């Protein structure tokens, strides 16, 4: 527990301190959402209809782009070697890093989502539901993206490769996230089933993502 807390706190400190870019994801989210009306026009009825979908897409891109450097900096400065030599299994260390990453970059997306929802003319009470679906679904995005981040370190390539590797894998999260959001906002389908599946995806991701990422890192570091 001590090691877990130490790693969690260190990673959160690193993203919050200067140069860490904790809020960069949230800023990117805001910018993406701002660009949409320029593309589709400021028609409020239209924006309200596509609002949940746009918010989910924006959150998807924001959480993946922020993942790019998750292992890269630790790899470059030798920290990754030492993380493997601690008493903590690498899978657990990787999961801890992912949780810290979600708290510092995923959670801000959830927090500003209601505000962005208002800008897309989503009803005030509905923005709460939207944020709830994001809170349940963005951890899955982080855990899936984790595998991509580990692979891109192993292959010594970053940036777009991560998005290319990971985006197809996030399709289920997108489908059920938007289904849950739409069910909560416009109905008529029930909210429960897609939302539970969304939660399940996050939990499965929590288990499988770190295992795959740790395997990729071990393989890549040789």
């Amino acid at each position, binding site marked *: 527990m001590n090691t877990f807390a130490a790693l969690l706190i260190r990673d959160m400190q690193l993203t919050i301190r*200067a140069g860490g*870019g904790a809020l960069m994801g949230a800023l990117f989210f805001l*910018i993406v959402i701002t660009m949409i009306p320029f593309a589709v026009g400021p028609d409020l009825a239209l924006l309200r209809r596509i609002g949940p979908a746009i918010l989910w897409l924006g959150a998807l891109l924001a959480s993946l782009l922020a993942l790019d450097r998750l292992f890269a900096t630790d790899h470059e400065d030798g920290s990754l070697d030492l993380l493997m030599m601690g008493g903590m299994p690498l899978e657990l260390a990787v999961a801890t890093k992912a949780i810290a990453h979600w708290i510092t970059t995923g959670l801000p997306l959830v927090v500003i989502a209601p505000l962005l929802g208002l800008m897309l003319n989503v009803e005030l009470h509905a923005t709460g539901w939207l944020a709830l679906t994001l809170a349940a679904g963005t951890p899955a995005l982080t855990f899936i993206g984790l595998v991509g981040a580990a692979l891109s370190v192993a292959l010594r390539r970053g940036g777009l490769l991560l998005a290319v590797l990971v985006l197809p894998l996030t399709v289920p999260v997108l489908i059920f996230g938007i289904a849950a959001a739409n069910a909560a906002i416009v109905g008529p389908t029930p909210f429960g089933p897609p939302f539970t599946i969304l939660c399940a995806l996050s939990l499965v991701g929590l288990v499988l993502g770190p295992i795959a990422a740790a395997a990729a890192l071990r393989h890549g570091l040789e």
Partner: protein
Amino acid sequence: MPVIDLANPSRVLVIVNRLLPWLVAVTIILFAIGLFRALNAPDDYQQGATVKIMFLHVPAAWLGMLGWVIMSISALGTLVWRHPLADVAGKAAAPIGAAFTFICLLTGSLWGRPTWGTYWVWDARLTSMLILLLLYLGVIALYWTAEEPGRGARAAAILSLVGAINLPIIKFSVDWWNTLHQPASVFRIGGSKIDPALLTPLLIMALAFTLLFVTLHLASMRNEILRRRVRSIRLLQAQKFAEVSA
């Protein structure tokens, strides 16, 4: 006062420390008068009391834009004249300008709720202000990411100037985009037909906001100078322990 004096941060610190209490006092007095006059201004016959949000909204918009003007001038100072204070002034102006822009957007959104029936409308003016806020956040992020102050300053100065050239183009395109989609704005702020009973408090409020900006800007510049001093002291401290004691 000769310009040479202003190049010396210690001299600036003394001046700022002497000026600040007076500035704070005048700002408070102006706000008191302005808010009093604003509260007693007549209601609009269409919008009722909500029109009073204008007294916060409009000055905030002006100062949001003024912030970028200051940043652009500072940027010239950094890039052309390499004045040591220019970068401090630019860095200090960014968060304050962003805050005023945000106040403008927030009050605009609160104003929109009773007027348009929704918190946000992609109105040309508001949208332009939103882009301005995004540009501000970009500059702040740039300062935040740069590890060494000097390099961050030059990068932010270039970005400020690019923004300054781009802002009118952005404003024009947003206006064009907006009129393309909706025939006219829902209502207009300002114009020449504003009632003198509203105009006087608005001008007082604008002056109060300007003084608030200046006060915050000077205080923030002082903090930045001190922060850099702390940094150089710490670097010296690190050098002092460069060797192990034999």
